[in-house]
């Protein structure tokens, strides 16, 4: 009955998300999003020449910095949605003690202001511990309601983790995009 279990998890996650943290959108928004045709982030990958179509995506990059990973405008957080693990006792790609990384992630393409290159970032929820609550960074560009889960943010991305309880989100570097 994996089907119902999965469904249960989704519902649980959705309601938990909405109840606990009004708008944590750690979704695959980014995932599909990246590629999606209407969301900003999504356009980026397609627009590697610097022709960034979306005003809001462009705004993120214009304000992005490469020094402080505990601030929402740190470049790797272009498709972030959640509490920064760097503010919760974890690192850019490590979970705080007591929480475990989910095997699944959502993906974003972010421009590094330090070298002007696009990188693929895997946003990974750390799970199994109560919500951290520090440094909420919410990207709402291109967000869709829950019935379009690939572009909705109100889903804790703890698939495959031991627990579906969301703690924070880390942003690991995957490689050049």
């Amino acid at each position, binding site marked *: 009955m994996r089907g119902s279990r999965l469904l249960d998890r989704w519902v649980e996650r959705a309601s938990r998300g909405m109840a606990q943290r009004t708008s944590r959108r750690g979704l695959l928004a980014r995932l599909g999003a990246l590629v999606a045709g209407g969301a900003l982030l999504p356009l980026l990958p397609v627009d590697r020449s610097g022709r960034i179509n979306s005003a809001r995506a462009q705004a993120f990059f214009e304000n992005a910095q490469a020094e402080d990973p505990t601030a929402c405008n740190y470049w790797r957080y272009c498709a972030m949605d959640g509490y920064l693990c760097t503010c919760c006792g974890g690192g850019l790609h490590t979970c705080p003690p007591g929480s475990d990384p989910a095997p699944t992630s959502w993906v974003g393409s972010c421009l590094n202001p330090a070298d002007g290159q696009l990188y693929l970032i895997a946003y990974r929820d750390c799970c199994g511990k109560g919500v951290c609550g520090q440094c909420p960074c919410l990207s709402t560009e291109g967000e869709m309601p829950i019935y379009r889960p690939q572009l909705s943010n109100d889903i804790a991305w703890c698939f*495959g983790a031991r627990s579906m309880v969301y703690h924070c989100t880390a942003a690991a570097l995957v490689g050049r995009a």
Partner: protein
Amino acid sequence: MVEGVAQDFSRNCQGCHRADGLGACNAVPRARDFVGLFTRIPEGREYLMRVPGVVWAMLDDERLAAVLNWMLRTYSAEQLAPDFVPFTAEEVREARKRPLANVLEVRGRLILKMQQQGLLPPGEDGFASAKCGR
């Protein structure tokens, strides 16, 4: 740098199926050393084109067909049917119009069939061996 079809995979599928193709236990079926088995039973080919992740992928039919073929060859070449014919954009376009409403039920039937044919050991369904958190 990742480009072309691999890039489409990495941006649309990799988050959940993972770069290593292992998926996530009880949530995302593994692709590695597994997904090609679906090409060995008649209904499997259509199944692959009608699962939610494929149907709703934000890729056009041509790129989607390319990603399907790439995933099969990259993660599961050994399991691929010897007479496998690559997916075409045309058949993907038609199949996508008919999403599986009961995907897990259909999948369960196909898995059972594969087990009965000895293609899969009992108990292995692509979820049991997917990647789990520690």
